[in-house]
Structure formats: structure tokens, C-alpha cells
């Protein structure tokens, strides 16, 4: 009888014989996927190692202390990064100042206020905003925002001239409209979608029973939001803000186009300035030797800064999620 059956004539023991063919491909596949997973570690590690390596001549030439000087002058071989770090932080904080209230409002709009059948479409609109490339934002900002903002800056600046703190912040307005504030506004618009997305998710996890409890006591909707949703969402929103901050710090192209390339340390928000990412893009093409090494060093600082922010943000979010799981 022709035996085309899959089963052998005599049953085998489960453990008899050599390694069954499937087992080898299982192991091989597992190794392949593990390698793919490890790739992330390898890449991140390599990035740190290589950038640190290339940045070494900058670090050793300047010495750790002078790196934090505010003198960035390639022509005279001075590569102090303080002005750039401060500029980066200024732009990032301005961006957060704009993005966070708007994002919280947007998240509330989508989760509580908008009519239910329309909510999806508003989310689509926010996602479209997220999809616009940075360079297109920059292009638009150059031709549309710079002039009007220049006028706004000069009027506010003259209005606040002489008032102690304000004239430092609003003094020396940029004529072209390119300014720290302009970069802050553009970056603020750009980070709004990601901050909104996370905040929205956090708000949506507020249990309906908590919201009903507040409303049943006679709270208005705003009181319910303040009393039930906000306390529940505190850590999640903090995490969203940090992630937005990380994005703002790393934003390169749009900033490079509108910030004005001025490496002097200043608190003039309406004046030109510069950030780490922006200066790398602007000067790298011409840089050689220590100059190039300094720019790569700035890249290393950016890397470390965003990695640290990312780690802290995820741990905050993780802790909030665990606490929520314990209560519900």
C-alpha cells in the first residue's frame, strides 16, 4: 500500500530522534527577531559613541568650563555654547507657553465639548497639522508671519520701553521679524498635535463614574472638568508637556528659517537668536576642524538632553498608569 500519509507507520516517542525540522527554524527566527530588536540598542549606542568621539576635539580644546561660555565665534576659534543652550531653552519654553493651554483646550474640546459624531473629524484635522513637514512650516512662516510679527514686536517694544523687566524682554525688536519669539510661535504650533494626542488619551481614561458623581452634585461642566478630570490627569499631562518640550528642543528646520542666527546671549525675546539645532544646520556646511567638532558636540548635547527628557517623561507616564491600574 502506498503510504502517502504524514504519520509514519510506527508511532514515535515524543522525545525520540533528532531535532525536528520545525524547531531549528523556530530558533533561527527567534534569533533574527532578537537581532532586529537589538538594532535599536546598537544604533542608539553607536550614536552616542560616534558623536562623542567626533566631539572630543571640541571638548578637549575648550575644556569643559569654557564650553559654557557665551562666546561663539568660529572666526576666532571660540566655541562657547551657552548662548545656544539658552536660546534653545527660550524657544522651547515659549513654544510650551503657547502649545500647552491650546492643547489642553483642544483635548477638552474633543473629549467633552464637541458633538459626538463630529469628534472624529476634529481629530483628523489635528492629525493633518501634525503631518505638515517642518520645512513647509518654515517656508510659510517666512513669507506670511515675519512681516506682521515685526510690526507687532516694534509696537510692543515701544509700548513697554522704560518699564523695568519688560523692556529687557521686549527690547531691541528684530526688524525682519526673525526672532526667538517667532521661532517659539512656530514651534508651538508644531508641537501642539503631539501634546494634544497624549493629553486627549489621558482625559479619555477618566472614569465616567467620577464625572457622573461630580455632575450629580450640581457641578457645572467646567467644575466637573476641574474637579474630576484634571486631578485624574495630572501626571499624564506633565508627561505630555515633557514630550512636547523634547520635540521643541529638537526642532531644527523651521527654527533655522525664522530665528535669525544670532549667537549672542540675550533675553530679548523679540530679537534674533539661535538654537543648537538651528546653528548646526546653518554652519555645518562650512565648518572644518574644531568648528565641526563643536557643532557635532552640540548635537551630542541635544541627544543627551532629549534622551534624558524622554526617560523622565516615560517614567512619569508609567507611574501614572500603574497608579490608575491599581485604583480601577
Amino acid at each position: 500500500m502506498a503510504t502517502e500519509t504524514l504519520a509514519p507507520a510506527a508511532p514515535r516517542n515524543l522525545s525520540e530522534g533528532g531535532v525536528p525540522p520545525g524547531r531549528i527554524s523556530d530558533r533561527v527566527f527567534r534569533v533574527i527577531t532578537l537581532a532586529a530588536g537589538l538594532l535599536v540598542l546598537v544604533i542608539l549606542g553607536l550614536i552616542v559613541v560616534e558623536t562623542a568621539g567626533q566631539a572630543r576635539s571640541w571638548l578637549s580644546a575648550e575644556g569643559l568650563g569654557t564650553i559654557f561660555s557665551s562666546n561663539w565665534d568660529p572666526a576666532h576659534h571660540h566655541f562657547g555654547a551657552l548662548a545656544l543652550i539658552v536660546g534653545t531653552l527660550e524657544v522651547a519654553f515659549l513654544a510650551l507657553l503657547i502649545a500647552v493651554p491650546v492643547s489642553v483646550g483642544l483635548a477638552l474640546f474633543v473629549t467633552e465639548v464637541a458633538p459626538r459624531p463630529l469628534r472624529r473629524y476634529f481629530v483628523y484635522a489635528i492629525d493633518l497639522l501634525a503631518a505638515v513637514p517642518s520645512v513647509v512650516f518654515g517656508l510659510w512662516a517666512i513669507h506670511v508671519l515675519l512681516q506682521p510679527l515685526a510690526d507687532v514686536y516694534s509696537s510692543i517694544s515701544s509700548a513697554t520701553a522704560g518699564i523695568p523687566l519688560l523692556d529687557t524682554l521686549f527690547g531691541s525688536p528684530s526688524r525682519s521679524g526673525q526672532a526667538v519669539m517667532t521661532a517659539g510661535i512656530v514651534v508651538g504650533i508644531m508641537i501642539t498635535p503631539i501634546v494634544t494626542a497624549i493629553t486627549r488619551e489621558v482625559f479619555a481614561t477618566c472614569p465616567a463614574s467620577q464625572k457622573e458623581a461630580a455632575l450629580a452634585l450640581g457641578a457645572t461642566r467646567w467644575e466637573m472638568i476641574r474637579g474630576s478630570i484634571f486631578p485624574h490627569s495630572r501626571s499624564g499631562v506633565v508627561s505630555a508637556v515633557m514630550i512636547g518640550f523634547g520635540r521643541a528642543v529638537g526642532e531644527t528646520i523651521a527654527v533655522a528659517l525664522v530665528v535669525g542666527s544670532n549667537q549672542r546671549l540675550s533675553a530679548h525675546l523679540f530679537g534674533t537668536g539661535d538654537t543648537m539645532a538651528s546653528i548646526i544646520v546653518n554652519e555645518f556646511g562650512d565648518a572644518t576642524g574644531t568648528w565641526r567638532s563643536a557643532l557635532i558636540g552640540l548635537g551630542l548635547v541635544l541627544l543627551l538632553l532629549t534622551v534624558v527628557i524622554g526617560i523622565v517623561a516615560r517614567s512619569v507616564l508609567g507611574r501614572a498608569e500603574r497608579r490608575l491600574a491599581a485604583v480601577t
Partner: protein
Amino acid sequence: MPEARSGTATVAPVLTRPPAEQHDGTREVLPPELGERQIVFDLSDVEVRYHGVTAVQNVNLRIAAREITAFIGPSGCGKTTVLRTLNRMHDITPGAEVRGRITYHGEDLYGPRVDVAEVRRRIGMVFQKPNPFPKSIHDNVAYGPRINGHKRGDIGDRVEHALQRAALWDEVKDKLRQSALGLSGGQQQRLCIARALAVEPDVVLMDEPCSALDPIATARIEDLMQELKSDYTLVIVTHNMQQAARASDRTAFFTAEVDDAGRRVGHLVEFDATEHLFTQPSDPRTEGYITGRFG
């Protein structure tokens, strides 16, 4: 603590007066005492739809002040739905539509100039599953007075008074700052009752308040309801008939029937003084439900 009893103590001896016929067939019996009792809620031809589909209809009843009115019936017959019309909770339910007329002390509850927040302050609600805020015991009870603008010194007194009224004060007076989530289920529910009482409502609605609790906690809450009745109007939904028989003054029996289109629609079958409904039900469906359960 007074034992939970049926409403015989408060309702006059049952009359032999024939029940008053409503135009749709529900019979409503009002002993003469009700003549002097205030009507708190008057529901006429109330119907509730979810996304266009009728869930409960033809509800006509009047709820009297300072009494416990119970809604009973099998699941899905609209008891909770009708309860939630009384404090306009359907306003926040997507797709819900309330038709008909519901008045509160003669005033249209759904009128155009009515302030919903004020409605819910006067008509409080306790939910099936206790839902204290993730705050301290004190802050839970203080929430209502705070949003109503009471001053700090005042609030401490109100919190204590509400907790006393909810028969919880002695158990928590030394740990007011501790999280409410550390309390037992029964204590949390009494906390929710205290929280509702703190805004000085007129009515307290209770949606199966004991279904998530053990028998001992249940008994304490039933005792509490008898105490509260002297100052508040209580309307409770319960799937536990013995509870309704023990604790309420008047009972409304709901059921769901399949309509021509094959959908289950709830409606009110009978509304009567509790003792009468349970001993001499006027409708065979009521009798079927009661006797079926008593076994």
C-alpha cells in the same frame, strides 16, 4: 436604630375605594393622606428614547414628599432610565431623548430657563457602585459645599453634619484626611450619601444603592433610609423585592414587553402603596412578578 419596616406605619389603612383609572390603564392608588402630602414629582406620559429607539414609555406617576418610593421590576424595563430623568442625568447620555412632562413642585423640570446645576443640587443621586472621588474623606463631602461657594469655616461644620446624617461620622471622625478609597464598600456608599446630603438637597435618588454591598452593609443603609425619610424625599431603584417591601412607602412596578416591531419596551404597570401592591396587586403581571420571586 429603627428596624427597617414596610411602610405600614406611615400609610393609612388601605381603603376599599376603587383605584382611580388613568387614561392609559395604569392604576394609581392614593390613600387620603396623600391628599395633604406634597407632590414632588409629577410624571405625565413620560417616554425615553435612546438613539430614536423607545426604551420606556407611558410613565405616569406622582412621587410624594418625605416618603420612600421604590421602583421595582425585571432588568431592562426602564427603572433606572426613569430615575435618571428626575435629575436630568440623561442630558449627558449620548443619544438620549426625554419626552413627556416632568414637573418638580409644579415646575417643568426641563423648562428652558431651568439651571441644570441647580436641579442636580436639589435632586441628588447615589449610584449603584460607590464612586467616591480619589480624595480624602473630608474633601469628598466638602466638594459640593465648596463649589456652591461656602466659606472654609462653614464647610467643616457642613461636612460633620452630613457625615452624621449619613451615620458615618463616628467611624471616620478621626481619619477625615485619609483617602476615601480606603473605606469598605458599605462605608464608601454611606460616604457618597453624605456627599449628596452635604449640598442640602430636597430629594435623594438612589440607583440600586445596595446591590454592590454585603447584607450587613445593606441593612445599615436601609436603616439609614428610614431615618433620612423624615427630612428628604427618597426614590430608590431596586431589584431586590424584599428590600422594596421592607423599606418603601410606595412602590412602582415596571416591566418590559415586546412591541409590534419585536423590540422590548419598558413601561409602568402599577403604582401603589407598598403594602397594598405586595398583598393585593391589581395587575396580574405584578402578581406574577411578586409571587415568582417569593417562590
